[in-house]
C-alpha cells in the first residue's frame, strides 16, 4: 500500500491535479468570461494529449 502526502505539490500526478482543479472547486461568476463549457472543452482537449506528455516525462526520468 502506498500513502502519499502531496504537500509537495510537484509530486502530484498531472491527471489527479486536473481532475481536481478543473473538475472541482467552487464556481462564482465574474466578468471575464471563461464559460464552464469552455473549460470543459479545455479539459477534453487535455485528456487527449496528456498521455503522450506523461509518457515522455516517465521516460525522461523525473527530477
Amino acid at each position, binding site marked *: *500500500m*502506498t*500513502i*502519499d*502526502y*502531496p*504537500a509537495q*505539490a*510537484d509530486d*502530484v*500526478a*498531472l*491527471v*489527479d*491535479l*486536473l*481532475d*481536481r*482543479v*478543473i*473538475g*472541482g*472547486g*467552487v*464556481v*462564482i*461568476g*465574474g*466578468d*471575464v*468570461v*471563461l464559460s464552464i463549457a*469552455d*473549460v470543459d*472543452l*479545455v479539459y477534453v*482537449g*487535455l*485528456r*487527449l*494529449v*496528456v*498521455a503522450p*506528455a*506523461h*509518457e515522455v516525462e*516517465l521516460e525522461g526520468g523525473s527530477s
Partner: protein
Amino acid sequence: MSAERQLIHAYGVLEADGATPTWPSGIADTSVSTTSAGKLVAVISQLPSSEFDPATWDRHADDAAWLGNVAFGHHRVLQAAVSVSDVVPFRLPSLYGDMSVLRQSLADSAELIDQVLDRIRGHVEWSIKLFRVDDSDDVDTETEPARTGSDYLISRSREKKARAETNDLVRSRCHEAFEQIRQVSTAAARNAPQDPVLSGRREPMVLNAAFLVERTGQHFFREMIEEVGVTCGSEDLQLEASGPWPPYNFAAIADAGS
C-alpha cells in the same frame, strides 16, 4: 510600454479569522496576496491579461505543459492554505477584471460560499484509489486449442462466466472498501476511474474516491485505510492513498446535501 492590463485570479477563500501561511509563488510565478471581503479573505494573484485572457486559454486548450504549469501554480497556493487553515478552493480559472468585480462576485455568492464553508470547516480531503493487480483479463487466452466448434463455444462461455464472476467480486470488494472508509469520513465522493493511459499505470483502476476527513481525526482515517489496504491486498487489489488535499471534491454545489 505603460502598465499592462492585469486580471485578478482568485485561488479560493479563507475565513477572515483563520491562519494564513507564508504564501508560495502563484500561477506564472506571480506573488500571492489576500484581500478581505466581509467575513472572508480571498487569496489572489494579478496575472497579465495578455497571457491569461480567454483567447489564450483557448489557444492552450490541448497544451498539457501550459495547463500543467498553471494547475500546479493554483494547487501550490491552495495546498499552502490547507496546511494551516480551512480553504474553499475556486475552480481553475477564476478570473476577474478588477477588484470591484471580484468583491461583487463574492458578495453575490456569499450564501453558496457559506454553505461550502459549513461543510468543509475543520476538514481536509483524502484520495483513495484501488487498482486491480491480478490481471485476470489475460487468463485462458492460450489454453489448448479447441477441437471442435462446440468445444470452442463452451470454453468461451466458461471464460466469459468466470470473468463476469471476478468482475462482480471486484465490484463488491470496491463497494465494501468504499463503505468502510466512508465510516471514518464526513462525506465521500466516487469519481470515474482514470483510464490507464491517463493514470500512467498498466493495472486497471477500479475505484477512484475522495473522502472529506476531519483534520483532527486523520490518524483514525489512516488506521482505517491501512486496515482496508491489507484486506484489499489479499484480494489482488492495491490501495493507493494520498492526502491531505484541499477539499476540491467537496466544494461544488452539486455535492450539497450528500
